[in-house]
């Protein structure tokens, strides 16, 4: 029931949003929607942690993984909504955008949320596919939001590449239905029945299907070499949208891959899917880390860092065991921190109105709080204690050291390279003398609170995990 309430709240905002004539109303309703979403998803998460799975009707199905993903969407979603209210106001003040664009923004934003929640909770694989495709559709215009040629280009690449990928994923999804042909199931086929029937899959077909799924949804997850759309889209979208894209959307897509991984493992054994995951993870980390070293644009930098972190997560699931557990944790931390980083990057962009790293100097004097947040986020995302990503990285590597020592060693050094490159850019941004044209003025508190909240949450989670979260995590590790 909560689920319907939650989803409807977004749709309610989204659809009539077109009719509303007043900005404040739109902002208010979307804020309320995201607050509701947060509350509801916590309720659902508690339910799931206590009951197991939660399926109010045949159409929805929330297991532990879904619950975790929902929590991520909701937490980041609230922060992003709060942030984007102020962000858009600032931009309207600078009259970069007008009212219609603001309205369009919020409508699409809420559609995006709805699509992501649907994708996380839909029962049928095909519906999941449809809604993930729907996220692509909802965000296409958000990426081309500023209507500059470069953002159109980004949007086009995003659309085309993702659709190609997703159609491959669709094909893979369909292949899993071959398991049903013996019994010829009719009507809507849910995840659970598929998993139940997975034993009837022909192992080779399962392998092929998984390859299609991995490469297809992997495009959405941003695994190299299918990652090419990601830096463009993330750097051209408005900062809050980039935060959602790399903080949340990637995880939603990856959760789907995991669901398919289970079926494949049932017939093809763990080794196959794990090796694939390890290979793609290592490639992603390699490419991302090397490109980060010579990056010139801080939003693209963050985007590549997302690719690297997705690679780490995938690697963790490839290693399995403790690795999977900590990969999930890594997913949570990364979602929170990366969106915080993108939000503070948005503030930096508002101040300097440039995304070139070379243009940003003396952040510490220009934006004291935001720069501190940015620095903290950087330390956190590159795995500096006391932030939890350090732990997850060590755990992932430790479980990798048991099975693939060489891989673990290589990845260790790639991570070091990421740190060096990232750190190089961050120091050049934070320190130094600030350019004279940038005037030092008070920071908008509402632009600071959301990233601060996210980082604080991540910090809290890296010191202590709530009980229901640990149960969810263990549940996921048990299943996937």
């Amino acid at each position, binding site marked *: 029931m909560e689920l319907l309430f939650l989803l409807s709240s977004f749709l309610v905002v989204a659809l009539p949003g077109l009719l509303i004539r007043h900005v404040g109303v739109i902002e208010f309703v979307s804020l309320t929607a995201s607050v509701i979403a947060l509350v509801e998803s916590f309720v659902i998460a508690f339910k799931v942690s206590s009951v197991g799975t939660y399926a109010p009707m045949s159409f929805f199905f929330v297991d532990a993984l879904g619950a975790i993903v929902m929590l991520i969407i909701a937490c980041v979603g609230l922060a992003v909504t709060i942030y984007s209210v102020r962000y858009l106001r600032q931009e309207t003040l600078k009259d970069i955008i007008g009212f219609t664009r603001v309205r369009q923004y919020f409508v699409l934003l809420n559609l995006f949320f709805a699509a992501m929640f649907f994708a996380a909770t839909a029962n049928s694989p*095909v*519906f999941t596919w449809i809604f993930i495709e729907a996220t*692509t559709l909802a965000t296409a215009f958000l990426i081309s939001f500023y209507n500059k040629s470069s953002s159109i280009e980004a949007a086009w690449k995003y659309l085309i590449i993702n659709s190609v990928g997703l159609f491959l994923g669709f094909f893979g999804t369909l292949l899993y239905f071959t398991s049903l042909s013996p019994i010829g199931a009719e009507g809507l086929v849910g995840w659970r029945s598929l998993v139940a029937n997975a034993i009837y899959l*022909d192992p080779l077909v399962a392998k092929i299907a998984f390859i299609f799924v991995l490469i297809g949804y992997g495009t959405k997850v941003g695994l190299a070499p299918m990652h090419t759309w990601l*830096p463009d889209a993330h750097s051209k979208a408005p900062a809050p949208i980039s935060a959602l894209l790399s903080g949340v959307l990637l995880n939603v897509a990856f959760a789907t891959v995991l669901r398919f991984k289970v079926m494949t493992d049932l017939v093809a054994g763990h080794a196959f899917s794990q090796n694939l995951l390890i290979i793609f993870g290592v490639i992603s980390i390699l490419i991302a880390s090397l490109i980060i070293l*010579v990056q010139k644009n801080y939003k693209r930098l963050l985007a590549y860092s997302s690719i690297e972190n997705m690679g780490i997560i995938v690697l963790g699931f490839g290693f399995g065991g403790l690795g999977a557990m900590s990969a999930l944790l890594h997913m949570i931390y990364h979602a929170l921190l990366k969106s915080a980083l993108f939000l503070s990057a948005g503030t930096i962009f508002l101040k300097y109105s440039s995304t070139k790293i070379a243009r940003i100097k003396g952040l510490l004097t220009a934006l004291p709080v935001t720069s501190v947040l940015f620095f903290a986020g950087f330390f956190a995302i590159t795995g500096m204690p006391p932030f939890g990503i350090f732990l997850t990285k060590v755990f992932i590597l430790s479980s990798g050291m048991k099975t693939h020592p060489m891989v673990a060693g290589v990845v260790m050094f790639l991570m070091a390279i990421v740190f060096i490159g990232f750190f190089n850019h961050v120091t050049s941004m934070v320190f130094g003398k600030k350019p004279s044209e940038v005037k030092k003025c008070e920071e908008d508190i509402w632009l600071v609170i959301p990233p601060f909240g996210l980082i604080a949450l991540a910090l809290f989670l890296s010191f202590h995990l709530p009980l229901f979260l640990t149960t969810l995590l263990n549940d996921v590790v048990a299943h996937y």
Partner: protein
Amino acid sequence: MLLEIVFLTIVFSHITRKNFGAVLAYSMQSLAIAMVIFNSFLLTGATSLLFIASLVLLVKVIMVPFFLARLIQRHEIKFSVSTYLNVPLTLISIAGLVAVAHSRKFAPLTSIVPANQLLLSLALSAMLLSFFLIINRKGAISQIIGILSLENSIVAFAIFAGLEQSFSLQVGIVSDVFIWFIIATALAFMIYKHFGSLEVTSMKQLKD
């Protein structure tokens, strides 16, 4: 028979120079798909299939080509932009891809339903070809068509592999594809506005 049409249309849109030709080929192709669905309606007699067939007919055979035609007329771009490979090379690679699709390698896929193994491998090669179309063509329209035909061939594969989905799924997919198509055309309009052509290779700002 109908699947051959799908296949041939894709090959045609590979080699044609005219955008209209490509669009026409696509509508033929979609028509064939619709016929296939209608055919299975005749076999099973499920009214939902009839509905879907008509939906496909409406969306893919009429509206999509119509919009594309509008786009083409608006910017009077009769001739589609160049490809990477010239026609002979394209044909050679097409042949290669077809061979790949028919190779023993893909036996596990194509022998899902042993009865129509040939059809399945044909659908598979159609998929690969439309994939190749997206890679090979530089025009935005050709890429749109490529993706649409990729979807068509997947649907065809699904049908012949006996993986047809429930009614709601079908509707969802078709509407999804339709919305996708609308957005893509809108973006194509914007591209033309900003870049003065529908040549996707003109978009090279976002590097590194």
